[in-house]
């Protein structure tokens, strides 16, 4: 279960995303998503579940784990909800490139938080 495996279920993924394959790259793994409205009747069930889950800020990766869907699929669903104005996204402010460091003030806050655990 924890081991990387080679299957995947393309059929199911295809259904959930309506056949689309381009994920919205704006959603980082740790982008925090917040619902802006309640689920409505007749809504695709995955959309409704996301709105339900994100009453409190919830990271993309936690949504994926909770819905048991791959990250890519969740990004597509979030793109839909964003376009409908039903969610807002709080993006990470840490550096987006692999090679650049976040500023020392942010790191100091992280250190402080870790020391207080």
């Amino acid at each position, binding site marked *: *279960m*924890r*081991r*990387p*495996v080679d*299957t*995947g279920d*393309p*059929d199911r*993924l*295809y259904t959930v*995303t309506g*056949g*689309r*394959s*381009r*994920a919205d790259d704006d959603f*980082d*793994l*740790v982008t*925090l998503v*917040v619902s*802006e409205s309640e689920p409505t009747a007749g809504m695709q069930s995955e959309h409704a579940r996301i709105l*339900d889950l994100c*009453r*409190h*800020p919830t*990271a993309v*990766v*936690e949504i*994926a*784990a*909770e819905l048991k869907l*791959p*990250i*890519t*699929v969740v*990004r597509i669903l979030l793109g839909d909800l964003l376009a409908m104005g039903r969610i807002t996204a*709080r993006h*990470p*402010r*840490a*550096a*987006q*490139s*692999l*090679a650049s*460091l*976040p*500023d*020392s003030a942010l*790191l*100091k*806050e*992280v*250190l*402080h*938080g*870790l020391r207080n*655990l």
Partner: protein
Amino acid sequence: MGSAISELPSRRTPLADAAETGLKIVIVGGFGVGKTTLVRSVSEIRPLNTEEVMTQAGVGVDETSGVAAKTTTTVAFDFGRISLNERMVLYLFGAPGQERFWFLWDRLFSGTLGAVVLVDTRRMDDSWYAIDRLEHHRTPFVVAVNRFDDDTAGYSLDEIRQALALPERVPLIDCDARLRQSGKDVLITLVDHLYELAMAQEMTP
């Protein structure tokens, strides 16, 4: 959005409503080195498991088929989380370090603060590729030696540094992934190191 009626008791503890900044640290290492154990020992939630589906081209769901799909690769990884304060939340990702999974690493973990390479001295070779790759990407990292009970060789940190050809500037520490305090110390060592690097960078014009 404040209604609590639909919140079942089994649901995970939600983040604070003021949470706005997500941060990432990656724990990388070979099979069974203790990645999940480390994540569990410091996480405020039970580690969760999720997966990413990849195709050759690096795009998610296969566009052309949907039915008779060519083989996609699913890579599983687990993660935990630490609320640092009301606004900041740190996610820890346990990622397999073997060469064939690094395409996942490249894609998923961009923007990470830094990495912890977990090393098992009985299988030191497993760490080579991860260290090499991190240096190549200039992702800052520390190396933590997870000492297992049946590690009889008892190499010193100096010997391990030599064996891994690890430059002096990369912090190298002992840890016991099962202990919360030890896990915390590993993370603090990493962020301390990042802080030093950031300060040095900010000093140079």
